[in-house]
C-alpha cells in the first residue's frame, strides 16, 4: 500500500470518503491497465493511472487545466479492468468532474444539457408538459398513472430520449405494442417523469442528480406497481444503483430482462422471418457498469427472431466499445471531436461492418442517433442500419 504525504489532502480525502470503496484508491498499483483500456486514454494528458499519480503527488492543478476530465465518457472500462477494484468511473472521475463544475469549467454543450435538466426536467430542453405526447393518439392508448388511478404490474420508466427524440419515439411505440400484445398491465408517469439523473450523476452534477432522483422517487411512491421496467440502460443503472442512496429503492428491470423472462410467450408471436445479419452493441450501463452484467438476455431475444443470424463484433460483452454517450459524453460531441478526432460510435460502426453485419442492434436510447450519425460520417450509408431490439421484435411480430 502506498502512503500519501501531502499538505493538501482535502480532495483526496473527499474522493476516498464520498465513494463506496473509495479507500481502494490507496491500493493503486500504477499498473496502467486503466489507461490502456480507456477508449480516449491516448487523447488524455492524464489517463486514470497518471491522474492517480498526480493526485498522490498533490499536483492536480495541471490535471484540471488539461482536457483530460471531460474526455471521460463513463464507460466503466477502467473500473472493470482495475486489479485493485478501484471505483474509478463513478468515484474518482465523477469527483474530478464535480470539481470542474464547481470551477464553472464545463464545455458549453454539456452546460446547456445540465441547465435544461434543471429547468425542464429533461436534457433536451423540451416542455415537460409534452413528455407523454409520443403516446397520444395511438391505436391502443398508453396508460398514464395519474389518469388511470389503479395499480399496475409494470411501471414503465420511459426516459428523456425515448419520450422526446423523434428517432426514439418509434422505439417507445414499438415497446408499447409489445407490452400490449403480451397483455402486460403497465403505465407510465407521463409529465410527472423527470430525467433519470444518470448522466448528471456521472458528469459530477451530484446536486442536480439529487433533485431528479427525489422528484422521480416521490412520483414512483405515489403509485402501486410490482416493478419498474425501462428501455433506458442509464435509467436502469442509476435507479438500481444510485437511487437507494437517496432513500428510494425499487425493483427495476431492463426491458431485455423483462422480455427474456417471457420468451415462451413471446416466441410464438415472432412469426415474420427477418433475414438480417445482426450484430449487437452492449450498452455500458447494463453491461460493465456496477457489474450489471446484462449480456445474454438481449442476445436471447435476437436469436428468438426467425431468420435472424447473430454475429459478434470483435469487442463484445465486458470489452464492448462504448458509444461515447455516457457520463455527459452525449453532450460533449464537439469537444471530444476537437481533442480526439474520432468518435467512439464511428469505431463501433466500422467494427459492425467488418463483422459483415447489415443491422446494428442496440438497446439504449442514445444509440440510434449516435450510430446513425456515425454511419453517415464513415460513409457506410446503405451497408448498415441501426435498430433497437424492441423495433426488431415489433417487426417480427408483423407491426
Amino acid at each position, binding site marked *: 500500500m502506498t502512503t500519501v504525504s501531502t499538505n493538501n489532502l482535502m480532495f483526496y480525502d473527499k474522493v476516498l470518503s464520498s465513494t463506496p470503496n473509495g479507500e481502494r484508491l490507496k491500493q493503486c498499483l500504477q499498473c496502467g491497465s486503466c489507461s490502456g483500456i480507456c477508449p480516449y486514454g491516448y487523447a488524455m494528458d492524464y489517463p486514470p493511472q497518471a491522474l492517480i499519480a498526480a493526485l498522490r503527488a498533490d499536483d492536480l492543478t495541471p490535471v484540471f487545466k488539461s482536457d483530460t476530465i471531460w474526455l471521460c465518457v463513463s464507460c466503466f472500462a477502467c473500473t472493470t479492468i482495475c486489479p485493485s477494484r478501484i471505483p474509478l468511473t463513478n468515484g474518482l472521475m465523477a469527483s474530478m468532474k*464535480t470539481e470542474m*463544475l*464547481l470551477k*464553472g469549467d*464545463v464545455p*458549453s454543450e454539456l*452546460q446547456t444539457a*445540465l*441547465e435544461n435538466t*434543471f*429547468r*425542464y426536467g429533461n436534457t433536451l*430542453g*423540451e*416542455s415537460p*408538459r409534452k413528455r407523454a405526447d409520443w403516446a397520444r393518439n395511438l391505436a391502443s392508448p398508453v396508460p398514464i398513472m395519474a389518469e388511470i388511478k389503479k395499480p399496475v404490474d409494470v411501471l414503465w420508466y420511459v426516459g428523456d430520449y425515448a419520450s422526446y427524440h423523434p428517432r426514439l419515439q418509434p422505439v417507445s411505440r414499438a415497446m408499447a405494442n409489445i407490452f400490449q400484445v403480451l397483455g402486460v398491465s403497465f403505465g407510465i408517469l407521463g409529465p410527472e417523469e423527470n430525467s433519470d439523473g444518470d448522466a448528471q450523476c456521472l458528469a459530477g*452534477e*451530484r*446536486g*442536480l442528480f439529487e*433533485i431528479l432522483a427525489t422528484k422521480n422517487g416521490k412520483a414512483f411512491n405515489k403509485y402501486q406497481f410490482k416493478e419498474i421496467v425501462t428501455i433506458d440502460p442509464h435509467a436502469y443503472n442509476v435507479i438500481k444503483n444510485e437511487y437507494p442512496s437517496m432513500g428510494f429503492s425499487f425493483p427495476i428491470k431492463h426491458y431485455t430482462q423483462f422480455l427474456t423472462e417471457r420468451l415462451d410467450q413471446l416466441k410464438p408471436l415472432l412469426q415474420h422471418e427477418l433475414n438480417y445479419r445482426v450484430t449487437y452493441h452492449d450498452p455500458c450501463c447494463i453491461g460493465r457498469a456496477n457489474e450489471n452484467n446484462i449480456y445474454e438476455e438481449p442476445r436471447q431475444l435476437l436469436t428468438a427472431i426467425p431468420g435472424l443470424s447473430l454475429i459478434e463484433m470483435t469487442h463484445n460483452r465486458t470489452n464492448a466499445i462504448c458509444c461515447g454517450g455516457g457520463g455527459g459524453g452525449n453532450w460533449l460531441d464537439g469537444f471530444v471531436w476537437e481533442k480526439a478526432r474520432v468518435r467512439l460510435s464511428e469505431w463501433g460502426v466500422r467494427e459492425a461492418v467488418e463483422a459483415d453485419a447489415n443491422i446494428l442492434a442496440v438497446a439504449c436510447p442514445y444509440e440510434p442517433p449516435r450510430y446513425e450519425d456515425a454511419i453517415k460520417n464513415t460513409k457506410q450509408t446503405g451497408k448498415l442500419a441501426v435498430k433497437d431490439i424492441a423495433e426488431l421484435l415489433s417487426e417480427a411480430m408483423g407491426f
Partner: protein
Amino acid sequence: MNIIVPVKLVPDLVEELTIDESGTTLDNTWLRLIINEFDDHAIEQAILLKERFGGNITIISPDIEGIDDLFFTAAAKGVDRLVKLVGDFGSGVNNHALARVIASFVRELQHDLVLTGVQAHDDLDGPLGPLLAEYLGIPYIGYITGVNLDDGRATVQKEHPGSLIAEMEVNLPAVLGIQAAEQPPRYVAISKVRQMMKSAIIEEHPIGMLDSTGGPSVSRMYQPQTSERATMLADNPDQAAEQLVAIFIELGVI
C-alpha cells in the same frame, strides 16, 4: 464600483404561447417565465467586471413567479445584493412603468454602472435601458459586447450592423444595453445554488402605483398567419442556383 443589473422575466418559448380570450394579451394559464437572455448576459458582464475591478453587484427584478430561483443562481455566480420589487405588477405593466419604478429605486443607491439586456422579446414599447437612462438623467449606449473601466469612465465596444464594432467612451454613471457578455453566461453547480437557497437574503422593496403612461395599447394580438408565398427550389444545385438568380433579377435585388 456599484453595478446595478435590472432583469426581466419573459415568456419561455419552450411552451406554446396562446392568446387569451380578450385577444390582446397572452393566456397566462400555461405561461412559464424565463430570464431574458440578454439580461443573463448583463449579469455575466457584471460578474466579469467585478472579477477584474472589484465592486458590488445588485440585481433588481419585479416580484414574478420564478424570480427567487433566478436570484439564487445569480448569487451563486457572485451577485452581492438581491432586490425584489413588490407590488401590483398585474395588467398594465410595460417598460415605461418598469423603468420609472426601477429608476426611483436606483436613484437612491450609489450607481456607477447600470447594465441591462439590450432588448427582450416582449418589449412592446422599446427596450428598458434607454427609458431607464432618461428617467435617471444619465447617458445610455446599447448593443454592447465589451466593457472596460478606468477612472470614472467606461470604454465600451458597440456593435453596429454590417459587422462593424465601434469603441466608445462614456462618463459614469451610465446605462449600458448589453448585447453579449465577453464570455457566455457561466455554469454554476446546483450544489452552490442550493447553498444560496439556504443563506442568501432577498430584499423586498415595495412599489407604489404603476405609472404606465407613454406605453402602447394593444388592440389585437394574434398568431402569425401562414401565407402561400413560399417558392420551392429544385433539388439539383445548378438548377436551384439558376432559379435563385432569376428570382433575384425579378425582385430587382440584382
